[in-house]
């Protein structure tokens, strides 16, 4: 009795106790060694190779995207290098019918979910065709407003639950996003409705330039899930196995009707916030960069797979060549897409055009025919 009371009446010690329990979940360490044998996932050799393939592919996609951006051939781009495990290993635990509500950096996940690469490039270029998800590919266009996708995810998940499907809605934001009101409203709504959602915070340490420590007094971002009464876990976001397992288990809980999970993946973006003028040297040192480079998700996964005899330099070279070839093809296809017109945009505003837009449609149709 006395002990319980002292706990309740000592909020500081209660907080300390809770925060101490949030230890980062890791399976594969920086050296590529299994440090949590019990939780090592039972992925087949093919699956392990596929996951590695996707991470290598995405690293190349990032390099080519940056280069295309510099040549003025891409448009808006948010670099992904460093976040491959966080992005691709979480996606790897999903099923085809699951929904993804991405943030602007989460293009790789929606590409591997079925959005053709040439459309992803059109999204970057600001062409509406890039946002047209093909039939049966349940993805939204990358969200620009930080956190807005969180409240929508609660809604999609509730819809999936009402429909009685065995699917989940998955969303991503960053460390900065976890400070938004919509972040709390999203996890709280999903929790209250026991909706099958998985909420990711990809904690890449900086919201543009603002460091993680300035976002919150909390020791972890994962612990925010407690406030909504939902399971929450902090995962080594540079460890593909830990990210995969945390997502797989969250998905299973969701499908069993146990509601949403909040997953913080601790990771790093090597590049700038976006290619639109951000200079990370203003807020990060080379020392910090090097510290994180030593934790690289691809390097450690490569070591792990090589140890199993599943990966080789030749294999990696093959993936890189295929990625380059497909990127070239996708850019070509993006180039061939007809330019968008004002009448295209007008047409996409309403099912039936109201009178003001009908008039404007005629005006622009005439202009466009000149």
């Amino acid at each position: 009795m006395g002990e319980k009371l002292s706990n309740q009446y000592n909020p500081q010690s209660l907080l300390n106790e809770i925060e101490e329990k949030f230890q980062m979940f890791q399976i594969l360490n920086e050296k590529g060694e299994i440090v949590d044998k019990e939780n090592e996932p039972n992925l087949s050799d093919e699956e392990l190779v596929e996951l590695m393939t996707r991470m290598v592919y995405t690293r190349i996609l990032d390099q080519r995207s940056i280069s295309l951006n510099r040549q003025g051939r891409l448009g808006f781009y948010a670099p992904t290098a460093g976040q491959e495990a966080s992005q691709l290993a979480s996606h790897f635990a999903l099923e085809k019918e699951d929904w993804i509500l991405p943030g602007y950096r989460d293009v790789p996940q929606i590409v591997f979910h079925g959005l053709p690469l040439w459309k992803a490039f059109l999204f970057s270029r600001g062409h509406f065709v890039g946002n047209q998800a093909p039939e049966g590919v349940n993805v939204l266009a990358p969200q620009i407003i930080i956190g807005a996708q969180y409240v929508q995810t609660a809604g999609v998940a509730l819809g999936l639950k009402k429909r009685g499907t065995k699917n989940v809605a998955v969303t991503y934001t960053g460390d900065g996003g976890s400070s938004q009101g919509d972040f709390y409203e999203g996890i709280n709504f999903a929790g209250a409705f026991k909706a099958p959602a998985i909420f990711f915070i990809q904690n890449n340490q900086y919201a543009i330039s603002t460091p993680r420590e300035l976002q919150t007094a909390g020791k972890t971002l994962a612990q925010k899930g407690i406030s909504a009464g939902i399971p929450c876990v902090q995962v080594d976001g540079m460890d593909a196995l830990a990210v995969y397992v945390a997502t797989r288990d969250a998905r299973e809980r969701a499908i069993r009707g146990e509601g949403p999970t909040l997953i913080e993946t601790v990771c790093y973006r090597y590049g700038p916030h976006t290619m639109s003028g951000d200079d990370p040297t203003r807020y990060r040192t080379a020392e910090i960069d090097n510290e994180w480079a030593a934790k690289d998700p691809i390097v450690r996964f490569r070591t792990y797979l090589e140890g199993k005899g599943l990966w080789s330099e030749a294999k990696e070279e093959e993936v890189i060549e295929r990625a380059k070839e497909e990127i070239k093809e996708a850019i070509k296809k993006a180039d061939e897409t007809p330019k968008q017109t004002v009448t295209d945009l007008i047409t996409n505003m309403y099912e039936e055009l109201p009178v003001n837009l009908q008039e404007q449609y005629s005006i622009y149709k005439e202009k466009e025919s000149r």
Partner: protein
Amino acid sequence: MAQMTMIQAITDALRCELKNDENVLIFGEDVGVNGGVFRATEGLQQEFGVDRVFDTPLAESGIGGLAIGLALTGYRPVPEIQFFGFVFEVMDSISGQLARMRYRSGGVYSAPVTIRSPFGGGVHTPEMHSDSLEGLMAQSPGLKVVIPSTPYDAKGLLISSIRDNDPVIFLEHLKLYRSFREEVPEESYTIPLGKADVKREGKDLSIFAYGLMVHESLKAAEELEKEGYSVEVVDLRTVQPLDIETIIASVEKTNRAIVVQEAQKQAGIAANVVAEITERAILSLEAPVLRVAAPDTVYPFPQAENVWLPNYKDVIETAKKVLTF
């Protein structure tokens, strides 16, 4: 036919649509057991179950996001924002997200969401409960903004709004909820969105109004008739998009017009109506088109409400300026 107040007509419309389409869902703060703070959803949870009519946590942006997500999975959400002054909490979900769903996805997704919300002054609410914020909504391309002035219109317009495949903001004037009854058919019927209603025909002046101001304008028209003026009163019913055809036809007939709104004068719907008239019918005009509106202050505390809100006397005063120009 039954005699109904506007709130009863709204409940009736919701019941019709819950019956008509199993994808219709109603949710918001206190809409379940409590039937809404104005009883708009009275008895609906009991009749249709907690799966279709349910309470949410208290967070407006969450309600907006929930509506968007449910729409993406094929539902037809009809959320309630408890008072429209709370819309500031859900501006991104409405203007940044809901309004853009069709556009952003290049037509792949739509958002058939109808957000119902009470607004309007004269009932001595605390702050942020009475503001007329339809102008804000009208500035978001992708939305339709509907404001009924009678029980009959409320039912038909709400059913049309729910069936519309684009998002509709459906604003219900607080003072009209129980101010009068009229005949409302018990069966389902629709009134097209974007169509104004000529409430009273006249030859000398057109008054364009919506919501509670329709009634102040009708009262003013009666008074003016005693002085020999024949005044036409047009209820806009949908303030975005405007029924330009009806507005212009009326002005071309009467050659004089005023626009009446309860909202502050700055920006807003009335300014938009004036602009449409001057762009399209300036040569028909015998006088400037004037506005009756509230002063450009924030919505006042209850003690100052009655002096602030426009009423039929203000309408008469402005009408005479235009009639005698």
